[in-house]
């Protein structure tokens, strides 16, 4: 073959290979890339039931406890506002009198946009978490059952072509059906489009290390390859009998990477070098710390982390304030870590934080150690939430909506993620969204 012919054919082959469309699992040609304005998205489910008044309302004790006229902002990594000056109980030390120092030089509010009065679909935790991840408001979403409708993880993997390790869910524990949220039971979606999941305070604790932390290392080609080959034979024989068992779909390379990550996490946990927030003394802060490690290792396109320690507000208002302050501290650390420790994600990541539900206007009868009343979540005030987001395409220092002019719904968060990662039209076409759900970008 002449040199010129060879070059010509090689060039044509190259162009052809690039140009040949490939069919995604969702049946679509090509993954959407051009329309995605953010390359990475981190969604913080600021959950556990955050009362509007003490969070974005910055009322501290003024609204919740009779005879305690002390307002103030205890979330000064997220929100602009002056911290309380009296009756400080949410910090560290004896009685919590020392507030945790601010991490971010600029609040997320200054860096991004706040939707200050958003409507929740439910006043309960699990249904609320589902409404964030599914973008729907389906009735009959039972506890201890997987989401009824597809989750954002499944939309991304099915229509966006993202691989399994591109999509992560880091839970703050295994209670409350949290481990069931990484994929739905929907017959057209399901586990093969699900997210990878860790509940780090369980996965990497000493007990789990005893069972998972001393794995034998096998040669990938000489040992693991024939092992998998025999497994395939056994599975094929079994599937001929009508039973199939779908898997999450991590490739062998992805599995090896996850195993290596787990090994490193065991080491870091034992050495105390996990990227935890400066103050890490509850489950939420540990979840965020390990989420930072997942971001550093996998650089996923989408990661969700859930928090829930504020839920102690049912019986301990002081503890609730303390957890709220720590949740703000942890999110500040998360955003700071992305910008300073993960260069591949710095400057091209969007963060969205949103509670799943609020808390009641009226207190219950339970008093805590400071004789402060506690709050449940069941009335109209529980449907009052907010959302904050920041990133390269998010307008800075913008506040949208007010108490008399609510804008946005909890399900908007999911469609916003879909919007940022290029599958918004697919999600809308799928037809499972709650009525009036929109991308936050469409509400700007």
């Amino acid at each position, binding site marked *: 073959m002449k040199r010129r012919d060879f070059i010509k054919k090689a060039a044509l082959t190259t162009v052809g290979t690039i140009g040949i469309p490939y069919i995604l699992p969702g049946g679509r040609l090509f993954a959407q890339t051009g329309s995605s304005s953010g390359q990475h998205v981190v969604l913080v489910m600021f959950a556990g039931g955050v009362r509007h008044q003490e969070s974005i309302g910055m009322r501290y004790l003024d609204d919740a406890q009779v005879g305690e006229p002390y307002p103030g902002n205890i979330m000064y990594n997220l929100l602009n506002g002056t911290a309380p000056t009296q009756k400080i109980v949410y910090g560290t030390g004896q009685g919590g009198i020392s507030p945790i120092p601010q991490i971010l030089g600029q609040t997320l509010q200054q860096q991004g946009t706040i939707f200050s009065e958003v409507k929740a679909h439910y006043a309960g935790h699990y249904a609320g978490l589902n409404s964030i991840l599914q973008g729907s408001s389906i009735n009959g979403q039972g506890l201890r059952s997987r989401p009824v409708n597809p989750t954002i993880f499944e939309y991304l993997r099915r229509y966006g072509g993202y691989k*399994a390790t591109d999509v992560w869910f880091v839970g703050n524990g295994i209670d409350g059906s949290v*481990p069931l949220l990484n994929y739905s039971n929907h017959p057209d979606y399901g586990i093969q489009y699900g997210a990878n999941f860790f509940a780090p305070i369980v996965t990497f604790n000493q007990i789990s290390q005893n*069972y998972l932390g001393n794995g034998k290392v096998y*040669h990938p080609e000489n040992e693991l390859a024939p092992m998998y080959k025999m497994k395939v034979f056994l599975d094929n024989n079994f599937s001929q009998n009508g039973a199939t*068992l779908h898997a*999450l779909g991590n490739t062998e390379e992805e599995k090896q990477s996850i195993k290596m990550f787990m090994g490193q996490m065991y080491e870091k946990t034992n050495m105390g070098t996990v990227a935890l927030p400066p103050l890490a003394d509850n489950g939420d802060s540990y979840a965020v710390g390990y989420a930072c490690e997942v971001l550093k290792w996998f650089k996923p396109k989408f990661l969700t982390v859930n928090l829930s320690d504020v839920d102690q507000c049912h019986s301990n208002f002081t503890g609730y304030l303390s957890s709220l302050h720590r949740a703000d501290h942890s999110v500040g650390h998360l955003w700071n870590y992305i910008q300073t420790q993960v260069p591949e994600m710095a400057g091209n990541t969007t963060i969205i934080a949103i509670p799943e539900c609020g808390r009641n206007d009226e207190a219950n009868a339970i008093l805590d150690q400071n004789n402060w009343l506690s709050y449940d979540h069941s009335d109209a005030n529980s449907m009052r939430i907010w959302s904050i987001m920041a990133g390269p395409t998010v307008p800075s220092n913008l506040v949208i909506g007010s108490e008399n002019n609510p804008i946005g719904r909890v399900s908007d968060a999911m469609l916003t993620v879909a919007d940022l990662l290029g599958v918004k039209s697919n999600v809308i076409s799928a037809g499972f969204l709650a009525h009036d759900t929109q991308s936050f970008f469409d509400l700007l």
Partner: protein
Amino acid sequence: MNTQDSMNKEKKFVSQLLTDKPSALQQSASVCREKEISSPLPELLGFAALAAATVSLASCKKDQEALFEVNNVMLYDNSADKSKLKSNEQYVSILYTNLFQTALSNNTVFELGKTLLSLGDQELAREVLISNFFNDAGVQMPTADEMNADIDAFIVETYKRFFVRLPSEAEKTWVKNFIERNAYMTPELVYFSFAMSNEYMYY
């Protein structure tokens, strides 16, 4: 005289003869022969006596009671019957028993169930767990030499241990060929494959 009366009379006569005067049998026979000439009655009496004796002897036999039994046969599941997915707790408990030939404590089963629940990719979680188990010297399995000495028996025992059934001929042939053609295939890797298989997830 009807036949029944005749038989009864003859039976009585013979019985008396047998018990009282066995030596008279000869005489009685002579008498019969004399009577043969004159009448058929003696012949009938002899026949009747014989029948009576037969009946008498037969009536003394003990009744035999019929005894119905089944042979002991080992039964194994068919893979088609496995339709229920094991829970994490069931899986780890059975796996440990299969590998170590001893049972796990309830507390350990509970802890392992929570550990597995904390990972999203359950297949990966099982793989890591099994690799940890194989790092324990207590796993009960044949050596590679023992396996290669009788691969057929090894395959049958492996199917019975993990799948609680016998392999089909096709399965046996494929697995045997695979082991023979892969120099790195050890009993450990065979066990690993079976413990990771979908069929092992069902019961």
